[in-house]
């Protein structure tokens, strides 16, 4: 960009920017190559599947149609495919593989099976010499890849074709059952065509799970799921890259701490702080845009509470499947409907808080707000509400079968876990986020013009742009596309959002808050932000592939994913131990300020974010990250453990912290609900920790043990979940959930209500305090400058705030 003389120059040496840009470019180049490889080498969907006589068993369109039946009925929020999805139902890849291989073995003279394809318990297990032969033949047949790439024809063996025909009735019985015993609605799927296609989809995933890649001795899914009947066991790659990534992690941590131990003084520490005095927050005038955020936070808290209640009901299905305290809940709100609501709401309420905090901070950064921002704010809020309730209602209609096919794809649900919402709502959400970016832009425009694109205002704006940009990538996942490819794009959103761009936007916002409060120098904050972007992106970008070890993507996805995502843990450790504590330093009482630091609980929530980043993302994330662990673990309670600790712990706590920061300016100091803030802090944190440690972690460990010992299929069975000890563990979480809701979520709702109330009162009274937009949040008591740039640039800068 052309450097105008009016532009403030970059506060650091150029090397910082170059390093960050190179890291990003390299990361996305690799990811781009992997995208290409996914299209080239992803598990192929054959044009047609024939039996040995050449008669059609099913074709590629059936698989695609079956995939859509699966997604549009919300089954990915019930069970899983390739290990990804919900955990109450079975993994259908493993399920079909088990049943079809059993049928094949029985047919070749092995142990007999029932009509569901499960082995009949033999009262007299006398050795059957024919059984070993049958087993070996089944292994050979399932592993031999009979797919002809030229013609796109896959030839099933006789017993594979037979298994398919025999399993259609089984899945028909399961999905069209006239009761809600499985947690699905009654007669969830009844159309014979749909049921056949659904079975074809399962059959295809199971085929890809066992058939060896051309020229390789492992299957398209790197031999996942573990299944002795088809000789699926961990590949050499899985072992080797597990070991390498472990070393990478330890080495990375060592290097980083070594480096910082040696060059402790990056320039951020040891320098005496300028002493500032904090403005009384309620004396800070709020712009119309900022006032509109009161409603955003109220909506956020309401969605949060709803999510909690929905979550409690989801949990109840696990503890007591067949009834809800004697009431047939599944008739109205089947498990998969509640699960998709739960997951979607978690994203919605966190996003609402981020959006609001952005709108709130922008005028403070730009020190102005153009007319009409308040109206735009309310418009955006209404648009978001439409998306949220449209999504919730749409998924209700879709899962209950009120709308179907194209209608459900556009207005019901697409059904990809985490991107469940229908396409129309998805597009609308992207548009809404773009409106948000536009809102930030119109506020920041003149400020941006005067700044070097590497400085904080730009980073704030660019980090905000990345949020809709990467959400929009989700549009590439179409329900009609091959599953391997949809999974690839889906995880760009799921992973890159939470493990890269949201972390970055978070750091920028938090750093900016401290700069605005005058407790951290801009130069130092910029250094932390760039360091953070660099560190997160080194591992986080390519690390996306840790979700795609077994989804039909080639082995290099696993290798690179394992390696780079292990490196991701390094910044988490580092930031927790070092940089976060540095940011908090700003808020300490050394300064002889005569007004108390106003953001006690916002900062404490940030402390909690640091803690959960370390425990939930770093420790629990790494616990399931090694390919060899993931191989047995994927789709079990250990994933839920990680997901809750990371998603609620990091982004949930952050959303609440941001809300408290902004609310502090809306609620008069005299009325500030200090006690409620404290209660919600302890309530959310203790509740979440209890949930993880009382139930999710121990259950996950037991399930992993079961998976390694008895088999993955067994570990995912409902009767494992309803075993006596596991049921006790499921009940143990109850006190934690109660604490979380009563002392966590409800106080947050109350505080946001106060925000709305006092904003309304203040508007009616016609403001208060000064009338200049985005007035300073502090005044300098001693010290000369907050922007310690080299003196030669001083003359060109804007008047420094507060001096």
């Amino acid at each position, binding site marked *: 960009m052309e450097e105008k003389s009016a532009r403030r120059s970059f506060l650091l040496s150029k090397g910082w920017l170059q390093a960050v840009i190179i890291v990003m470019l390299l990361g996305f180049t690799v990811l781009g190559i992997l995208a290409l490889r996914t299209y080239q080498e992803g598990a192929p969907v054959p044009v047609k599947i024939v039996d040995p006589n050449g008669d059609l068993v099913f074709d590629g369109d059936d698989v695609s149609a079956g995939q859509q039946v699966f997604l549009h009925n919300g089954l990915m929020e019930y069970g899983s495919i390739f290990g990804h999805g919900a955990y109450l139902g079975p993994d259908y890849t493993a399920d079909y593989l088990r049943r079809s291989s059993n049928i094949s073995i029985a047919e070749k003279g092995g142990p007999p099976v029932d009509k569901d394809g499960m082995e009949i318990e033999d009262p007299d297990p006398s050795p059957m010499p024919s059984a070993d032969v049958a087993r070996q033949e089944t292994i050979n047949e399932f592993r031999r890849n009979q797919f002809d790439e030229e013609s796109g024809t896959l030839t099933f063996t006789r017993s594979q074709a037979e298994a398919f025909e025999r399993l259609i009735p089984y899945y028909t019985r399961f999905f069209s059952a006239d009761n809600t015993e499985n947690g699905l609605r009654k007669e969830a799927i009844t159309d014979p065509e749909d049921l056949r296609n659904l079975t074809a989809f399962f059959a295809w995933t199971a085929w890809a799970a066992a058939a060896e890649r051309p020229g390789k001795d492992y299957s398209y899914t790197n031999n996942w799921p573990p299944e002795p009947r088809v000789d699926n066991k961990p590949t050499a790659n899985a072992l080797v890259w597990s070991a390498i990534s472990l070393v990478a992690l330890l080495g990375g941590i060592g290097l980083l701490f070594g480096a910082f131990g040696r060059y402790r003084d990056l320039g951020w520490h040891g320098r005496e702080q300028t002493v500032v005095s904090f403005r009384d927050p309620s004396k800070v005038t709020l712009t119309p845009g900022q006032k509109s955020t009161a409603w955003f936070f109220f909506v956020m808290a309401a969605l949060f509470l709803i999510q909690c209640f929905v979550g409690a009901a989801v949990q109840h299905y696990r503890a007591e499947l067949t009834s809800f305290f004697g009431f047939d809940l599944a008739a109205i709100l089947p498990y998969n409907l509640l699960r998709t609501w739960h997951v979607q709401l978690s994203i919605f309420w966190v996003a609402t808080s981020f959006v609001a905090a952005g709108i709130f901070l922008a005028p403070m950064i730009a020190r102005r707000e153009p007319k009409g921002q308040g109206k735009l704010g309310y418009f955006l809020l209404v648009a978001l509400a439409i998306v949220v309730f449209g999504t919730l209602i749409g998924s209700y209609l879709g899962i209950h079968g009120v709308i179907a096919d194209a209608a459900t794809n556009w207005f019901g649900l697409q059904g990809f876990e985490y991107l469940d919402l229908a396409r129309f709502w998805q597009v609308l959400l992207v548009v809404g986020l773009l409106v948000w970016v536009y809102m930030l832009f119109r506020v920041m425009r003149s400020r941006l013009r005067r700044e070097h694109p590497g400085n904080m205002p730009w980073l704030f704006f660019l980090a905000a742009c990345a949020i809709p940009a990467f959400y929009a990538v989700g549009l590439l996942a179409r329900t009609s596309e091959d599953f391997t490819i949809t999974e690839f794009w889906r995880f760009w959103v799921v992973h890159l959002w939470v493990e890269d761009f949201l972390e970055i936007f978070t750091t920028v916002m938090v750093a900016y808050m401290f700069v605005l409060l005058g407790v951290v120098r801009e130069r130092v904050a910029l250094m932390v932000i760039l360091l953070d972007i660099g560190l997160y992106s080194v591992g986080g970008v390519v690390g996306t592939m840790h979700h795609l070890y077994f989804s039909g993507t080639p082995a290099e996805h696993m290798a690179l994913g394992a390696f780079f995502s292990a490196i991701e843990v390094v910044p988490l450790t580092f930031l*927790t131990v070092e940089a976060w504590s540095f940011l908090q330093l700003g808020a300490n009482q050394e300064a002889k300020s005569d007004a108390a630091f106003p953001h006690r609980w916002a900062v404490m929530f940030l402390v909690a974010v640091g803690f959960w980043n370390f425990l939930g993302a770093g420790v629990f994330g790494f616990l399931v990250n090694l390919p060899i662990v993931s191989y047995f673990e994927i789709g079990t309670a250990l994933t839920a453990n990680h997901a809750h600790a990371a998603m609620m712990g990091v982004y949930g706590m952050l959303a609440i912290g941001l809300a408290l920061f902004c609310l502090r300016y809306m609620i008069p100091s005299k009325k500030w609900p200090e006690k409620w803030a404290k209660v919600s802090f302890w309530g959310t944190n203790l509740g979440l920790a209890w949930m993880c440690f009382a139930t999710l972690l121990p259950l996950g460990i037991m399930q992993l043990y079961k998976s390694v010992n008895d088999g993955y299929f067994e570990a995912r069975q409902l009767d494992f979940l309803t075993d006596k000890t596991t049921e006790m563990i499921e009940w143990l979480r109850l006190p934690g959930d109660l604490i979380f809701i009563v002392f966590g979520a409800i106080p947050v709702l109350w505080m946001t209500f106060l925000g709305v109330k006092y904003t309304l009162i203040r508007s009616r009274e016609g403001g208060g305090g000064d009338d200049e937009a985005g007035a300073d949040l502090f005044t300098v008591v001693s010290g000369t400058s907050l922007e310690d740039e080299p003196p030669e640039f001083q003359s060109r800068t804007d008047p420094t705030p507060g001096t």
Partner: protein
Amino acid sequence: MSAEVLLGAAYAALLLGGAVVLEWLSRHTHNRSQAYRTSGFDYDAQHDFWVCHQGEQLWPAEFDRERRLVRYRARAAVCNACPAKRDCTDSTGGREVTRAVDPWPHSEAGRFHRGIAVMLVVLACFELSVVLVRNREAADIAVLAPILALAAAMAWWLARDLVRTPSGFPDVKPAHGNRIGSE
């Protein structure tokens, strides 16, 4: 003895271990950030003064009771003439270093970590009790009771310490340092 008893006992032990690790990590972070704040300065605990990297000594200047910290200051004349001043301080009154007894938010972050540790231990007690109610044979009790006793003792000790530790949040009223010593 059922598997549940062994598992329950092992997991409770794991929770107790987790609490201990958390305590340790929390203290470690606290110390590290403390060290960062004063990096470049060496503290002489015996004589209670600091030496900066240019060799100037900083002596106690005041004790801030409300904020529970000691401020140490270098001689203004020396600092103002110091070539490293730009990277060190904006103040013309001489560089200041503080030693806080328990600075916020680390004090409160410490309480937070302690709170989580207490929760882990209480959870261990709760879980052991539930298992104990469900498995009441002599052998079960022999395994579970000692761990339960240990957990209860830990819970009591940690919780008592938590209650006694102040949050250290600086009070709203302005602080007035008491001058001590001379400059």
